[in-house]
């Protein structure tokens, strides 16, 4: 792994006083390789490596730490900082109900995450209600209704085929019935589908969400920057849920998404069941990305 590679690259440094340019170049190559293998986008890697290089260069070789350990500490700390130093709560509106909008590419885990977030909110003593605005995917609305049934959380369902109208009616229903959070599940879409991205903008204008969460698959590769950038520019995301973290993907998409959007990763999905949602821990993610 990167830690052992850096130890090897820098083991002859012990006799010297400072981490020199020559040693840094070799280390930076190892770090770049490790991050690319973890799926961090190559432009994000370039920026990251230059920041780390700046921090590591000229550092005195500390007496108690091996030089390799010292550099890996700089890398780990920098990565943790970039991923978000603190865990961030869900923002609620002053006047209920709050609206949370879940968006993202096809198959990323939005519908499942809607259920997970609803359970989470109920455990935090909220009264959530769900609505699906996915009028495209076969049995999507049925899927969310079944999810709601499985976790015993109310779902608003109406015969309409207009996503904006469905969301608007659900919000009114939430107000009338005294729910304090409305979770809006949306259809998966490509960030390059102009019509569907505009639809999201219209849903946003209609229901004014306090949270617009990008639901992204942790195994996404270099494309993560493209979708994250576009969703963020269009909708002004408030946060990210990174799903399928129970697999063995290194999850470099986390850094790519954070770097390009600046939005905090709030949760990770760690399984298919509705209790499989965890708060995001940047230092754990940093270790995972570093392999």
């Amino acid at each position: 792994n990167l830690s052992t590679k850096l130890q090897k690259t820098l083991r002859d440094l012990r006799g010297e006083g400072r981490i020199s340019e020559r040693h840094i170049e070799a280390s930076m190559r190892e770090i770049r390789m490790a991050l690319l293998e973890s799926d961090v986008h190559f432009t994000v890697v370039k920026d990251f490596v230059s920041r780390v290089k700046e921090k590591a260069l000229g550092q005195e070789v500390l007496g108690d730490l091996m030089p390799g350990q010292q550099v890996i500490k700089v890398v780990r700390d920098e990565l943790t900082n970039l991923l978000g130093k603190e865990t961030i709560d869900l923002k609620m509106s002053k006047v209920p109900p709050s609206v949370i909008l879940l968006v993202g590419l096809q198959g990323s885990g939005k519908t499942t995450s809607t259920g997970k977030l609803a359970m989470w909110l109920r455990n935090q003593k909220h009264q959530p209600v769900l609505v699906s605005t996915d009028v495209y995917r076969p049995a999507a609305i049925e899927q969310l209704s079944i999810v709601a049934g499985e976790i015993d959380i109310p779902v608003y369902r109406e015969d309409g085929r207009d996503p904006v109208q469905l969301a608007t009616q659900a919000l009114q229903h939430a107000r009338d019935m005294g729910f304090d959070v409305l979770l809006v599940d949306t259809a998966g879409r490509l960030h390059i589908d102009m019509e569907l991205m505009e639809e999201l903008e219209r849903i946003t204008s209609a229901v004014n969400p306090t949270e617009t969460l990008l639901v992204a698959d942790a195994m996404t590769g270099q494309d993560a920057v493209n979708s994250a950038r576009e969703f963020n520019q269009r909708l002004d995301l408030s946060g990210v849920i990174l799903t399928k973290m129970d697999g063995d993907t290194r999850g470099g998409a986390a850094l790519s998404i954070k770097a390009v959007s600046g939005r905090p990763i709030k949760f990770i999905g760690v399984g298919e069941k509705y209790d499989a949602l965890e708060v995001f821990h940047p230092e754990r993610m940093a270790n995972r990305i570093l392999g």
Partner: protein
Amino acid sequence: GTADSPITESQLEDLENILIGADIGVETSLAILERVREETRGRKVLSGAQVRRMIRDQIGVILQASQEVDPGTRSTTRPRVVFVVGVNGVGKTTTVGKLAHLFKQEGEEVLVCAADTFRAAAAEQLAIWAERTGADIVQQGAGADPSAVLFDAMAAARARKKDVLVVDTAGRLHTKTHLMEEVQKMQRIAAREVEGAPHEVYWVLDATTGQNGLNQAREFFKTIGITGVVVAKLDGTAKGGIVIAIARELKIPIRYVGIGEQAEDLIPFSAEAFVDSLDL
């Protein structure tokens, strides 16, 4: 400079970024560029256009090698049994629907099996695809044993004299041993019920997947065997370059490419078209 002025180190870096940006992966990208550097050593200086051509050719060779492993002639056994497998959310159920449409158009009688008994509304989703494509469907209630549904579907396919049975399976992470064993059990059942079944095991890859795609392919290949890859969601901006690493290592042919969410959005894989799409 122009396309025929000698390639510079900076241009080589740009090419490396295009390869990496396409999810081809560091190891494969470096191997490709190393071959380029070998060719240029002691030879005349190469232009940017020549190097790009060299890279495209190398990728083409890798892809062709895995395509030639198996020309993909269809089994003539009735029913032909096709399993569709892969991790969560990649596009399996939609691909089953598209395959049903494709086979129907080719004049076949199609039966689909809703063997995903776990995920909410999985059978309902497939039922809509069956209706859309004129295929029959065998499904049971939620929570049923997938092997039991498969067994029923195999019997129905034989009884109704279907040409092909396409089996939709639940999404499963390759790291979940018990879920991989579930598909192995389904394979044994299929083999007992119809000679040579499953005749095809199509593994679906989401084109947005990065290096983890190689881990997935390795595990599915080792545990279940894969006769063909389907790359879904290539209508997005992702290039799906991990298939090159997969082809290089596992030599599995890529059969189809998914380019949208409708029944007709499945086309045969073309190595040439794929290489062109990399914009090298």
